[in-house]
């Protein structure tokens, strides 16, 4: 997109590029942040959902009479009561249709599936009622499938009677050039890599408050995408969209989990409408662990063709996603496609043949989690490179050097069509190596005297698609956002954007952008986000899109506003428009000593003293822009390829670990990130995104794992004692450095940075621990890398050598 304002800001920005302090902080710091659970309306009722305690069963009866008889319980609703609610749409044609109802009717497919809603005067009593409903529910258990193997076995019990099998999709491209690589290569190895089931786990659970007054349904929701919630709730409740208003107040994190539109998002508004009373549901943590989407559970069966000198000639990878029950809107199918699209990262490696498979199991539906498939792919690629280096006696860093894209090689089209528009792939790796070398020496020295400790280093290079298409994910929406900019009579600026955010600092960012665009101070800019009634359409925060969407939409609207403002000012200055410049927050005639015209004067003319407007000019000073990145594709081209992201950030992570042989304990001694997200709008915010992403990546690399009983598909977790979210003591200090390779085709060169941090750690930790234990030939193929996993690997290595059951030392 070409905007005059773009080059203006690039050359004379006063706020873009600086760590402007956040305007979002004061509420949470002083206890006056307003989250969904803080909203209290007169007469508001509390909703609690009764959830399946069976992994797969027919519901044979729900006796709600005892709950209904309980003092304080107002109503109990089951699926049959919601006959006036539409089914969640199945928009994606090539995946199995799940025809999801908001409440399970006669069949439940995972522990945690909601099947009844209890409405009561307070939460305590509503929980009492839900316990009574649970006690009154009878099931006929069905055979379960707990993992991909069970799901895809022939004759497996089916989750959906109208499907042929549990396979939701299987997309298998064939590349003759990969066949040739396998024919010509010196060697081939096969391996299976596994990423475990995790979740985004925001500290604030989900929550919905709804109230229907005078025909308008207002929904406060802890969602990442209020406009999409409005569109979907209106569709499902059969209401005109203007009569549904969705507000997201302060949001306590989302990390992908709140991009989905859940049954509760529909049922709670329905209850408010049905009972003509405000209703509220706040997810508790026990629910959150089973009822908000899980993610990352993938298996990758790979074949790798390589030469004796370490050259990797070709890779075939079958990537398989465990979708859980699949009962989630939008479907959780896209991440595995992203895994395959991004698997080769910033390496010049076209010879990849990637098959993509999804299957349903009797577990919590899989969905989005920050990283959205990228970490799983980076894990596979980096483990492959380490293996080939080991098999061929090649230095691991050198092999990466040989493969990484060099300066001048971008734009580069990846194996699946992703177009790396710019980047610092080699430079980031070299810089990170430089930063890590002295630290590695220090760590080695520190542990030199301890025979029980080994030290290792792990590498990850990756790309991060930013501002992606949502069409592939939803089958419905696209990939752009709108913003409106207004200057009021007093000269104050108001920005309203379709983007919304949950802690990233989008309001601060929007104010920086508008301030630079209009030559004012950020303090003069009021930012409105997260209210469908007060903001134009947008898709919300996910996919590392916030920075670019705000930049594009705010600048587009600002440029339009500036054109009109300049015309007004020129009229007031009795000058030609072309001679009028905006400097120091006011309009001047260039090179003239004539007095200037302030924003307040322009705003007053536009709205109030319309007599000061040029003849025939329409009053008002408010403009909008819908930003859609130019080169963003939503559909596959003739060759089956697609560039489904507007730009591509990149980065390198290097981790240094120490491993205690006797116990398998792993300590990350140093963690280095070199990150390139194009033009940086606010360095502090970007660094914060990197920190948080890395911590979540480490969580996946070493701690968090949803385990299910393989025989019953019953969850083996219920609390933070079983789902191990890392504390301050588990997250190491990080050293972060940046490159800035502007996105050549995007406004200001902004790319995006939300997800990259999560991508490196699984590959880094597995690589570093395998390096530390190389004398035993340990080569880890799955996460999390736990003390048990480390000891198991050492025992297996020892057993392979015929050393019996005893593991080292």
């Amino acid at each position: 997109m070409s905007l005059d304002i773009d080059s203006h800001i690039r050359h004379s920005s006063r706020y873009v590029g600086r760590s402007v302090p956040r305007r979002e902080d004061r509420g949470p710091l002083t206890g006056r942040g307003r989250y969904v659970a803080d909203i209290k309306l007169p007469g508001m009722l509390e909703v609690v959902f009764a959830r399946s305690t069976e992994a797969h069963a027919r519901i044979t009866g729900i006796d709600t009479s005892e709950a209904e008889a309980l003092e304080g319980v107002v109503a109990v609703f089951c699926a049959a009561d919601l006959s006036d609610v539409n089914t969640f749409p199945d928009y994606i044609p090539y995946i199995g249709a799940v025809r999801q109802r908001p409440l399970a009717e006669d069949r439940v497919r995972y522990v945690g599936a909601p099947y009844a809603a209890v409405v009561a005067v307070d939460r305590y009593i509503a929980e009492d009622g839900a316990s009574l409903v649970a006690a009154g529910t009878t099931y006929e258990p069905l055979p379960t499938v707990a993992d991909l193997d069970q799901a895809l076995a022939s004759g497996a019990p089916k989750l959906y009677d109208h499907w042929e099998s549990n396979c939701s999709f299987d997309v298998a491209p064939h590349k003759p050039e990969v066949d040739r690589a396998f024919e010509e290569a010196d060697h081939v190895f096969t391996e299976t890599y596994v990423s475990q089931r995790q979740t985004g786990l925001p500290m604030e659970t989900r929550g919905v408050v709804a109230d229907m007054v005078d025909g308008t349904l207002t929904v406060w929701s802890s969602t990442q995408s209020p406009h999409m919630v409005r569109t979907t709730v209106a569709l499902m409740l059969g209401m005109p969209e203007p009569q549904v208003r969705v507000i997201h107040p302060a949001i306590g994190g989302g990390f992908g989990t709140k991009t989905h539109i859940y049954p509760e998002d529909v049922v709670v508004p329905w209850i408010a409408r049905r009972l003509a009373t405000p209703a509220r549901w706040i997810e508790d943590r026990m629910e959150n662990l089973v009822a908000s989407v899980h993610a990352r559970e993938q298996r990758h069966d790979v074949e790798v063709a390589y030469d004796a000198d370490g050259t990797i000639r070709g890779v075939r990878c079958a990537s398989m996603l465990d979708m859980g029950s699949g009962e989630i809107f939008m479907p959780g199918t896209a991440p595995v496609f992203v895994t395959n699209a991004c698997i080769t990262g910033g390496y010049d490696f076209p010879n990849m043949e990637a098959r993509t498979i999804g299957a349903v199991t009797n577990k919590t539906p899989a969905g989005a989690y920050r990283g959205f498939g990228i970490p799983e792919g980076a894990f596979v690629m980096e483990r492959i490179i380490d293996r080939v280096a080991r098999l061929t006696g090649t230095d691991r860093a050198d092999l990466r050097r040989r493969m990484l894209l060099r300066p001048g090689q971008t734009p580069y089209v990846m194996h699946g069509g992703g177009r790396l528009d710019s980047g610092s792939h080699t430079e980031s790796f070299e810089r990170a190596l430089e930063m890590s070398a002295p630290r590695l020496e220090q760590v080695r020295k520190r542990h030199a005297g301890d025979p029980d400790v080994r030290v290792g280093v792990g590498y990850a290079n990756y790309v991060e698609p930013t501002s992606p298409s949502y069409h592939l994910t939803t089958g419905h929406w696209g990939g752009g956002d709108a913003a409106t900019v207004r200057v009021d009579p007093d000269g104050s600026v108001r920005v309203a954007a379709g983007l919304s955010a949950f802690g990233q600092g989008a309001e601060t960012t929007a104010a920086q952008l508008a301030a630079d665009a209009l030559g004012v101070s950020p303090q003069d800019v009021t930012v409105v986000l997260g209210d469908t009634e007060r903001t134009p359409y947008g898709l919300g925060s996910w996919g590392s899109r916030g920075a670019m969407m705000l930049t594009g939409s705010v600048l587009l609207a600002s440029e339009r506003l500036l054109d009109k403002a300049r015309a007004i000012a020129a009229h007031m200055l009795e000058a030609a428009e072309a001679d009028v410049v905006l400097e120091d927050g006011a309009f001047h005639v260039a090179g003239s000593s004539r007095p200037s015209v302030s924003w307040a004067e322009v705003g007053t003319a536009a709205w109030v003293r319309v007599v000061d407007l040029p003849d025939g000019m329409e009053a008002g000073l408010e403009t909008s822009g819908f930003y859609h990145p130019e080169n963003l594709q939503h559909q596959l081209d003739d060759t089956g390829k697609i560039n489904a992201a507007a730009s591509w950030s990149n980065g390198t992570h290097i981790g240094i670990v120490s491993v205690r042989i006797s116990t398998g304990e792993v300590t990350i001694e140093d963690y280095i990130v070199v990150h390139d997200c194009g033009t940086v709008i606010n360095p502090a915010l970007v660094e914060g995104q990197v920190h948080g992403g890395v911590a979540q990546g480490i969580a996946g690399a070493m701690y968090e794992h949803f385990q299910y009983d393989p025989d019953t598909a019953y969850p083996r977790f219920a609390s933070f004692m079983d789902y191990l979210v890392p504390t301050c003591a588990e997250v190491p200090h990080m050293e972060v450095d940046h490159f800035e390779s502007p996105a050549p085709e995007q406004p200001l060169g902004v790319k995006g940075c939300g997800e990259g941090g999560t991508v490196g750690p699984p590959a880094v930790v597995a690589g570093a621990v395998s390096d530390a234990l190389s004398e035993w030939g340990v080569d880890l193929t799955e996460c999390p890398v736990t003390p048990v996993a480390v000891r198991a690997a050492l025992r297996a290595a020892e057993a392979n050598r015929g050393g019996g059951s005893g593991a080292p030392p």
Partner: protein
Amino acid sequence: MKPAPFEYCRPSTVDEALEALGSSESSRVLAGGQSLIPAMNFRLTDVSLLVDINRVEGLDAVTCDSGGVTVGAAATQTRVLEDDGAASVVPGLRAALRHVGHLQIRDRGTVCGSLAHADPAAELPAVAVATGAAIDVTGPAGERRIDAADFFHGPFWTALEDGDLITEVRFPAPPPRSVTIVDEICRRAGDFAVAGLVAVIEVDAGAVRSARLVGFGLGGVPTRLQAAEAAIGGWAADHPVVTLTEAVMADTTDAFDDIHAPNWYRGEAVAALTVRAALRALATEEEV
């Protein structure tokens, strides 16, 4: 996650507390509540009456003398952790309490509550067994003193009968030339241990003279490592570790198997902790 309905009382004497405990089928003592209330929030525990002993006179005392430390039923973990006298007389208390939960948990949680709760992965029951603590209990059957070795019956299961109340626990001082070590493998700071060890090791002239070794997180109750205690006598830093590790493995063949670790890992981990403890104890002697 709100508790189901229950009744509550807050007596000011032990007799009132006992009477209340006896008045209801599923009454429970509420001391720190740091394990009981989460269980009630999950609705995992059926409680009809909570008897809050936090304001019973005299139950929150911590007293030390050269022979040991006595901790009252309502004394918080923070109180004991910060008591320098207690730490010098029974070093295992402070060493263990540093691993117990987090500050906010220890500010409410009680030492006696941890014993009564009897989580098999908890540190304090193992300290009680390792030091030979005596637990004073009063209840419908009158007052009695129970040795820690007889107190723990299984996971979350103790010698306490319905209506019983622990009034205090006495941790005797370990032998004079001993070193007490509390060490554990846990996944995150403050978590219950995957496997842990309380070791009271007597050292003499560069070798271990004898040791009391109690593992936790291994089985239903704190586990005396008897083979290891036999093997460790006379062990010195230059002796092969396999003598110790094989003994511990023999002691731990029945260790737990759960999502956090398989049983073989727990054995290996405690074996490693035993070696580590012996080496630390021997190094401590050198320093002194």
